[in-house]
């Protein structure tokens, strides 16, 4: 071989090297086939809709990218913008108007010949994962496509690694509907444990290494905390709103969905120009209900910790991280992100689901726990593009303009926004309006 050819070969190699994904040290974890089980948060749901604008940076995708160095091969049930249901946008700050974007998205990856790697279904609770095959045109059908339960499909893929973050909806429905109904909006502990163990045992049986995540206290999300139970007069005096059981106290929560009622004077004393009529039960999560939900979440988390320990799995303590974030915020480079609605940077326009930054932060919680437990050296997600909103463009994953994403600067939950949100959360209180019928093809 001539010297020139050796040189050319070396040059070609040098040119190729940067293009080759270099091996990530995943320790004793193996991300050859990674599957995610979960609900809307694992699905990458954001601002009241499932859209690839957010799905392409879902926390499971970010874990996959960091653990494998690859950006392809992790299949998700992508939906075109503006999503199913249509994602919410901020129309104006004054008056504060949050409404769904016009139109509806359509599924982009419906013909994948195998189950998705991200099998999370918005609205799913722990029992849905083990039992639900169809929901008659809802998001289960979009994602499960009649091929079995999420858990069956996960097992079918024989994952080498699986993350399980399920249980939020077992308590969230009680919080967002303002009604604690045992066995309806709040899952009993015994059935939670039985279903959770079924998930863990099934995944362990097919040889998957596991990471489980705890459930954050859903009574601390902006959906629950944003509206004060008091009206503050110019004098500084605080006048309580009127709840279904009388005047509200500081420990009662007025839900974000109460805005529609407040706008027509409900819940506001007549002396202050209101109707003097009480807010509906669905608009208020009272102190007792909130305490019941928090206690139940603690019980769920005790089960999750026990199961994680039994399966020798990584435990991602989202509950502790969120509790800390609620008090201290999430500091990054001199900035502090907080759970405040609209301006905190952690929660999207629905007050329940994370922003792009929030998802990247969650991915880093998972990665840190996986690194720790499996003696891996998976790098955390670079937060810079998520802080400054250039996530998609800068990493070359997708360009918002290419997929017809609206100019974000063109963005009160309108009744339609609330309906969409409840529909996707599987909250049955207000009837869903229309988004259901589109995704069956």
């Amino acid at each position, binding site marked *: 071989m001539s010297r020139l050819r050796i040189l050319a070969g070396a040059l070609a190699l040098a040119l190729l090297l940067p293009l080759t994904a270099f091996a990530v040290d995943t320790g004793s974890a193996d991300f050859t086939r990674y599957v995610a089980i979960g609900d809307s948060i694992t699905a990458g749901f954001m601002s009241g809709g499932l859209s690839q604008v957010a799905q392409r940076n879902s926390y499971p995708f970010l874990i996959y990218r960091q653990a494998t160095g690859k950006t392809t091969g992790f299949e998700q049930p992508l939906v075109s913008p503006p999503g199913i249901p249509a994602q919410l946008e901020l129309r104006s700050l004054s008056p504060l108007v949050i409404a769904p974007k016009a139109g509806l998205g359509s599924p982009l990856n419906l013909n994948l010949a195998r189950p998705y790697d991200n099998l999370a279904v918005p609205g799913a609770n722990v029992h849905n994962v083990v039992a639900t095959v169809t929901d008659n045109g809802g998001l289960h059908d979009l994602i499960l496509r009649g091929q079995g339960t999420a858990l069956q499909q996960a097992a079918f893929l024989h994952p080498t690694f699986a993350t399980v973050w399920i249980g939020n909806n077992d308590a969230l429905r009680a919080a967002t509907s303002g009604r604690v109904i045992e066995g309806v909006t709040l899952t009993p502990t015994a059935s939670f444990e039985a279903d959770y163990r079924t998930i863990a045992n099934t995944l362990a049986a097919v040889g998957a290494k596991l990471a489980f995540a705890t459930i954050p206290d859903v009574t601390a999300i902006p959906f629950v905390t944003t509206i004060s139970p008091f009206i503050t007069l110019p004098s500084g005096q605080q006048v309580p709103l009127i709840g279904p059981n009388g005047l509200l106290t500081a420990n009662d929560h007025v839900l974000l969905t109460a805005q529609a009622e407040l706008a027509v004077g409900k819940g506001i004393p007549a002396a202050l120009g209101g109707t003097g009529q009480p807010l509906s039960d669905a608009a208020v999560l009272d102190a007792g209900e909130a305490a019941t939900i928090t206690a139940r979440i603690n019980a769920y988390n005790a089960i999750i910790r026990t199961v994680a320990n039994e399966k020798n799995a990584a435990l991602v303590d989202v509950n502790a991280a969120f509790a800390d974030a609620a008090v201290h915020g999430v500091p990054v480079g001199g900035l502090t992100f907080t759970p405040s609605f609209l301006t905190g*940077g952690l929660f999207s326009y629905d007050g329940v689901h994370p922003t792009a930054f929030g998802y990247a932060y969650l991915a880093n919680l998972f990665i840190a726990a996986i690194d720790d437990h499996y003696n891996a050296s998976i790098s*955390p997600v670079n937060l810079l593009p998520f802080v400054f909103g250039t996530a998609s463009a800068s990493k070359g994953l997708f360009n918002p303009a290419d997929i017809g994403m609206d100019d*974000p600067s063109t963005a009160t939950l309108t009744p339609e926004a609330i309906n969409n949100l409840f529909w996707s959360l599987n909250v049955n209180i207000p009837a869903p309006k229309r988004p259901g019928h589109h995704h069956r093809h």
Partner: protein
Amino acid sequence: MRRRSFVVRALGIAILGAVVAAPMYAAGFGIFEQGTKATGMAGAFTAQADDPSALFYNAGGLAFVDKQAFSLGGTYIHATKADLKGADPYPGLGYHAEQKKLSAFPPHAYWVRPINNVWKIGVGIETPFGLTTEWQNPAEFAGRFLSTKASLRAFDVNPTIGWQVTPNFGIGVGAIARFSDVELVRYAGAVNPFTQSVVNIGKLDLKANFSEGYGWNIGILHKYNNSFSWGLSYRSKITVDYKGDATLASISTGNPVFDAILATKLPFNTKLPVKTAIDFPDMASLGLAFAVTPNVLVETDANRTGWSAFKQVNIDFTGGPTNSLPDTTIQQQWKDVYNYRLGVRWTTSPSAQWRFGYVYDQTPQVEQSVNPLLPDANRNGYSIGYGYTGGIKADFALMYLPFKERTRNKSFAGEGPFFGTYNTTAWLLGVTLTF
């Protein structure tokens, strides 16, 4: 009295003007180069202290002064490299930022004279601390919410008395008045509710006015015999309390409604009274000098700097509820450090002397406090100097100061990531004239 105070202040401001933009070049934000003869030997001078810069290096040397002398000089400092390569999770792998390459000329001046064979007096003006960091493209710099510019200027007025106890043993004691000012600039950001991403909303420029703090120093020099001498020098800790103003200049987010909301929440474009304090460390030096031949002298020094005094910088807004921002604390939690110096002095003729030196300077900065405001690192210094003695004395020194790479991968509890690796390189050129 009031007039004298005014003169001191005016003089002080003039001197501070000359010290503008001194990049820190002894570890921490110290500047150990206060005499060109010493700089030629990388600061290994405590056991020699045989020119007027003894007032800084070892006041014990003042005891041996036998005629009046006046020394004036400065050190030209030029940073050739000061940059940051980011690490995940923030500002991320692939991120790169550079500081402005700063040049500065911190001066020094000394006057010494004997009163009689036993008692000697002197006054030194020194610039033993200083710091400037300034990042390029500040409005886009990923660390802009931490710091885009930091400037600390300080000089000491150091009257000293020397006592020649025996012909070969001297003690010196001095008082130190330290004059200093500080400027800190950073940006304020907020989440734009329309884009759910961070935008600049203001630029906070904090200026602490020229303020004073007081301390003392002591030194011993023992010329044991013709071939061995030793010296011990100590300069005390000094705290300077500053008062000043901060101004938060508004930056439009592009949305007038959001701008208006911010304007109701933040005291934009108004002077906000502020106070802060900096604890400058004490410093102790031990030097041993051996004359290997009548013309070649070797000195080794160890310095201990009490940087553990630099625990945090509290910035207190004192303007009351309507004219202030939340108080902030910049955590430092530094450590005491030693540095080691080796100097060689080679006298080639009665009028010429060559000097060589090496210093290993340890950073006092713990990893968690490495940030854009002050990215410090361990460093090596290599020096060469030349001294000419004729009608006047002229000293020249050149020092090359490559910093070790400094990487931060952890934060204090409750503080977020700003991870990455800093690289810095500087050259120093010193000139001192003595009459």
